[in-house]
């Protein structure tokens, strides 16, 4: 297969994935599992691009722990694996296109209709749902977030700095990195035989 044909196939495949990603990127991971791990459905690249379940898990965990959107990272990794850097770019571009188009249309109408009374009323209801949605996601994040007791203090500290002193998020993430290194070094030296929790 010619290189350009591979890029095109990857692009189209990820356009398809991109159309069905409601509520975060996890549905793309599920779609990739069906297609590349279980081999269900028609792959755009027959005979190429298969993944073992463990590979997909690795892609996902690294995609999650690097900055940026998880699913963009996973698309980049997957494309790179199959067809090098430009394969990765093709996957990312394909994945981004459908949500960008949908959102551009919605934003256009939001801007045009924002003043309409009934839209404003519906949006007030929707706004009331945003805090519970973030709260439930936050509760989901709590699991595994506090590997060592001082991590609780890190959360308290960033909360205070963000809320009361308006410290920029960029600095708070850097602070989290430094404290993470310090905390881990401290605990790993204290009990070197304990692996990750």
């Amino acid at each position, binding site marked *: 297969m010619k290189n350009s044909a591979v890029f095109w196939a990857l692009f189209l495949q990820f356009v398809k994935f*991109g159309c069905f*990603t*409601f509520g*975060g990127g996890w549905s793309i991971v599920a779609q990739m599992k069906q297609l590349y791990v279980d081999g269900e459905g028609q792959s755009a690249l027959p005979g190429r691009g298969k993944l073992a379940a463990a590979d997909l898990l690795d892609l996902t965990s*690294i*995609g999650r*722990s690097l*900055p*940026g*959107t998880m699913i*963009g*990272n996973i698309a*980049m*990794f997957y494309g*790179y694996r199959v067809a090098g850097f430009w394969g*990765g770019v093709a996957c*990312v571009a394909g994945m*981004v296109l*459908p*949500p*960008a188009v949908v*959102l*551009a249309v*919605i934003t256009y109408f*939001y*801007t045009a209709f924002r003043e309409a009374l*009934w839209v404003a*009323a*519906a*949006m*007030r209801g929707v*706004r*009331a*749902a*945003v*805090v*519970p*949605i973030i709260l*439930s*996601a936050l509760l989901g*994040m*709590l699991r595994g*977030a*506090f590997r060592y007791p001082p*991590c*609780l203090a890190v*959360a308290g500290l*960033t*909360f205070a*700095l*963000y*809320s009361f002193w308006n410290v920029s*998020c*960029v600095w*708070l*993430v850097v602070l*989290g*990195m430094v404290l993470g*290194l310090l905390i881990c070094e401290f605990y790993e030296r204290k009990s070197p035989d304990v692996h*990750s929790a």
Partner: protein
Amino acid sequence: MFTLLKLYWSFVKIGFTSFGGLSMIPLISSEMISHGWMTAAEVSDIVAIAEMTPGPLGLNCATFAGMRTAWLPGAAAANLGVLTPTLTLCAVAAVFFEHFKNSRRLAQVMTGIRPACIGMVAGVLISLSQVNYFEGAHVSLPSLAVGVLDLVLLIKFKVSIPKVLGLSALLGLLLFGGLGL
């Protein structure tokens, strides 16, 4: 042109310091409000719209904010910004994939970043609550009731987010449009 660069740069910052999903919200919120591109109420709207439509939250916020600020070129600039870590850092990581997979340093750094993100998200929850459940100095009881109902549906009955948002929109129409509360 200057606005496009500023948009791009804002979303580069957001991209590089966010680690998946809703941990982006504190950054998006402070960047948008400090530049005067959005009000706190509009930040809530993006979160809701982004959750209702396909695509990851970060990209949807980028499109929304970019469109609101500078139309299609703005959306392109913002999307490119939020994808910059993926196109740079992640491309490098892909080359050293095996090395990154079990990197101890990465695990250590994440040990600190996860709780830091939780702290920031908790902070943004408070500031969004002030916008969404208050009218001036008074608590808006209908809004609060919708919020509590949604929380129960989400946590207790595991109702999916698009459904919760649809229901809330209907309740909003009924309470604020129909009854005029």
